[in-house]
């Protein structure tokens, strides 16, 4: 079966940085209108650097793998650099995603951008507690 790229299967089967980040400085939830899937991204920013990033959520292989990979991509990076991360950067890091599923792949990036914005204005968004 021509399936998903190995990197997607790997991150889906062995998610990195999954769970809550109790001392997060920014946290945001993004929902996919296509299926109702929800992902929460949490970051801890210290001295302008993403010191830690974690995610939680229920969803498809693509959105969960994307969230997992994203936490790896940004950990240890300066916020200024993370803010420049484009949709295309994430999609190519995932090895390419079929066009019918772009919204799944980009869901975590939307959450991340809002989490960083929340951090910026020191105003944390309040996600629904069931996520």
């Amino acid at each position: 079966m021509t399936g998903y790229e190995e990197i997607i299967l790997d991150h889906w089967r062995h998610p990195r940085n999954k769970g809550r980040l109790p001392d997060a400085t920014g946290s945001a939830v993004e929902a996919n209108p296509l299926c109702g899937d929800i992902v929460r991204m949490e970051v801890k920013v210290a001295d302008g650097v993403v010191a830690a990033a974690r995610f939680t959520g229920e969803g498809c292989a693509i959105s969960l793998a994307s969230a997992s990979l994203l936490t790896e991509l940004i950990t240890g990076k300066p916020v200024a650099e993370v803010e420049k991360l484009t949709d295309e950067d994430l999609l190519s890091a995932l090895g390419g995603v079929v066009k019918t599923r772009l919204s799944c792949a980009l869901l975590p990036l939307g959450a991340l951008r809002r989490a960083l914005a929340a951090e910026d204005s020191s105003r944390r968004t309040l996600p629904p507690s069931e996520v």
Partner: protein
Amino acid sequence: MDARIRNDFPILDRTVHGKPLVYLDSAATSMKPRAVIEAEADFYRESYANVRRGVYALAAEANERYEEARAKVASFIGAQPGEVVFTRGTTEALNLAAWGLGETVVEPGDEILVTEMEHHANLLPWQETARRRGARLAAAVVTPSGELDLDDLRAKLSRRTKVVALVHVSNVLGTVNPVAEIAAEAHRVGAIVVLDAAQSVPHMPVDVRELGADLVAFSGHKMLGPTGIGALWGRADLLAELPPLLTGGEMVREVWLNWATWDEPPARFEGGTPPIAQAIGLGAAVDYLTRIGMEAVRRHGEELTALALGELLARPHVTVYGPHDPGVRGALVAFSLAGIHPHDVATLLDQEGIAIRGGHHCAQPLHRRFGIPATCRASFYVYNTPEEVKRFLSALDRVWEALR
């Protein structure tokens, strides 16, 4: 079913990702036979004009073709032409019903009874009506096996219940609800029965008088017809009482600057230029289905459903939603693979040319009832074959092997 039927559907010749298309999403929308495509095109080529207002020959001809289509749709469901209102589809038909009944029979403190298995199209209009009128919305629950809990429905029926709105065949569970029985009970307390027949009229013989509902909604695009056309059937005396949802041209008698009188049904409910070519296309779809025979359509759907259902139920990693007896089911099966998201199943099947749906199928409360965000759904129609169902099943096994 005669396998040559497939030749009538040009789109079925195409490939997807280099594989022959296996289209198993007819519950969302059906493919179109040449007869429908050509009927619509012929109307534009030969008889096109606006309906209802022209006095020239071409306009009269267009009007005749439009009204012929209405008569075909009416006889298809055992009704009179004057009782068939053309709408954009099921959604508009149900909104028309909910608006009209809200204006006429639902009073503050009254109740509207729906069910947990409704498509959003037969839920949100009633939420809005309830909110607007200060009425209460109640919902009959669904049993674990995916049937309506009739005891619960009975318990929730009372003199306060003004409307019972329910689906004939669930687009997720496939359940065929006992409409005649429910309608009789609803009428006993004086409630009006509104039926969402989007998944029944395309797939089985439907006689609106036998069903006993007061208003029945369905969509053309799910029954081989064009998009943008559907119908609301209503008891003539009830339609006569309802106000229009859309006001404007072609639905009025007399218009003054500060008042107007409505035309009679069905024109009253067809404000503005209607989807004329689409109505004519729907007439051609009804002719096509009638030629096959709705008994044969139903049998074919049952056969394919039985095949898919039996095979899916035999796989321990598959969960099937809804009744297990294909005899009491529509031509569709919703299922999930353990630990795998429905969208992943749908994407991998797509790469083999197989189109199924993954998602909540516009029935979020129902999915919540079963504690799941989404399901996969394979649905069948006249052009599908047992070989296609088998291809789907073996591809599904490969998905399971790849992702388990």
